[in-house]
């Protein structure tokens, strides 16, 4: 029997089988991830292990857990920064923090914290505003390697110039470098920040909600998902917010299609900062 599927159709089928194998064997469900980026990561991984068909990854992953682990970690390799999108941090400082200041105790969830630069940015800002002592910060990601880096808080010195610029653009008036020590070609964020932060593995697709958060930061994580999965993750986030809690998503992310949009009011829609309506 001959059938002439196009290259794209065949790859589509191979991908479906691979994801099914991964899901059955490892319990990671990538079926509702945005495909384009996933295909790219898979192709890159294939180059690194010298395999030229997507389907050839099936036996590899089924029989080699280490290979799969490396693959999962490569799936979410990202480049992030301290105070990325300074104008967002400016609004957090000027409009969100003053409200948080009126609470005796503040819970913050940073979902998809990657290597941690953003969560330290928030912690630094909270300390400057004098309320870090009253905050419990949860920083989660499903990538264990990224979490390890986040916990260590060690970043290349090459990035410092950018961090400093972002910080100043975000309205920061202190000396950012007071928050780390320099060592060789790296900086290490002061450990007093890590003490206020609980780093934990959490998968937005398969794990449950967190309780009663006053602020949820989930920036540039939803972009990994297709529309259905975005909606699910947003519902989980919404459940985790206390009434009048704040939500901040990525600058180019999109709530338009989500059903939680109507339960949120704008703090700054352009910068994607929202506040949950009262009960």
């Amino acid at each position, binding site marked *: 029997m001959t059938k002439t599927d196009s290259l794209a159709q065949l790859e589509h089928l191979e991908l479906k089988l691979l994801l099914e194998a991964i899901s059955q064997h490892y319990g990671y469900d990538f079926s509702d991830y*945005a495909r384009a*980026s996933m295909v*790219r*990561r898979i192709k890159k991984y294939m180059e690194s292990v010298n395999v030229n068909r997507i389907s050839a990854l099936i036996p590899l992953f089924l029989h080699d857990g280490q290979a799969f682990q490396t693959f999962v970690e490569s799936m979410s390799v*990202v*480049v992030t920064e301290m105070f990325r999108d300074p104008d967002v941090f400016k609004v957090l400082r000027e409009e969100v923090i003053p409200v948080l200041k009126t609470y005796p105790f503040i819970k913050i969830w940073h979902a998809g914290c990657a290597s941690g630069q953003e969560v330290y940015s928030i912690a630094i800002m909270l300390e400057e505003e004098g309320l870090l002592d009253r905050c419990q910060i949860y920083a989660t990601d499903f990538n264990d390697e990224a979490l390890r880096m986040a916990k260590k808080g060690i970043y290349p010195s090459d990035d410092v110039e950018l961090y400093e610029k972002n910080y100043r653009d975000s309205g920061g008036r202190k000396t950012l470098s007071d928050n780390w020590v320099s060592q060789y070609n790296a900086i290490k964020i002061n450990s007093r920040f890590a003490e206020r932060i609980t780093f934990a593995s959490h998968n937005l697709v398969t794990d449950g909600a967190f309780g009663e958060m006053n602020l949820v930061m989930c920036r540039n994580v939803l972009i*990994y998902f297709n529309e259905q999965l975005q909606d699910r993750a947003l519902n989980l986030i919404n459940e985790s917010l206390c009434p009048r809690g704040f939500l901040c998503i990525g600058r180019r*992310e*999109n709530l338009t299609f989500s059903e939680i949009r109507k339960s949120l009011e704008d703090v700054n829609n352009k910068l994607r900062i929202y506040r949950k309506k009262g009960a």
Partner: protein
Amino acid sequence: MRGKYSGNGGKAIVIGASAGGINALGFLFSELEEDFPFPLLVTKHVGAKDDGGALRVLARQSSLPVRLARDKDAIMAGTILLAPAGYHMQVEESGVISLNMEPPVAFVRPSIDVLFQSAARVYEHALVAIVLTGANSDGADGIRAVKDFGGTTVVQCPDSSMISTMPQASLGTGCVDYQLPLEEIPAFLDQL
């Protein structure tokens, strides 16, 4: 409408540009008619901190709507979507845009290759990919992918390009169907 232009059916145009690209894109967009029937997805290299300067310039010159893409924006006929600074822009089978923050590719984010490779798979024969002026070799791998999946490839003639490195690199793949001076590209798009 979501999904309308994925797979078969209408064509889609992807364009990559770098140094000198604002002028080239501005010219191109000023020449297209208001009823241009296909979506246009554009990756123009911009610095990570670009706040939409390119967008403002292009929007002024274009008779079609030009917008910075948001994640999961629907891809629509007659609309120009521009890759935002600091993200790669890709196409999903469901007919929407995806953005991602993977590391820069060959030092750039957004990367033209990343856009072209994803669009190649989704649109297959219905894709037309165009590489314009630029000072690096982004787009060449993308052009190869477009050809592999059956799409049409166009490169701005090096001697009509402000900077010819990028067109040259694409031509070097041997996967280019048409080499056109900038002035002829609008007419080429019109007859698609």
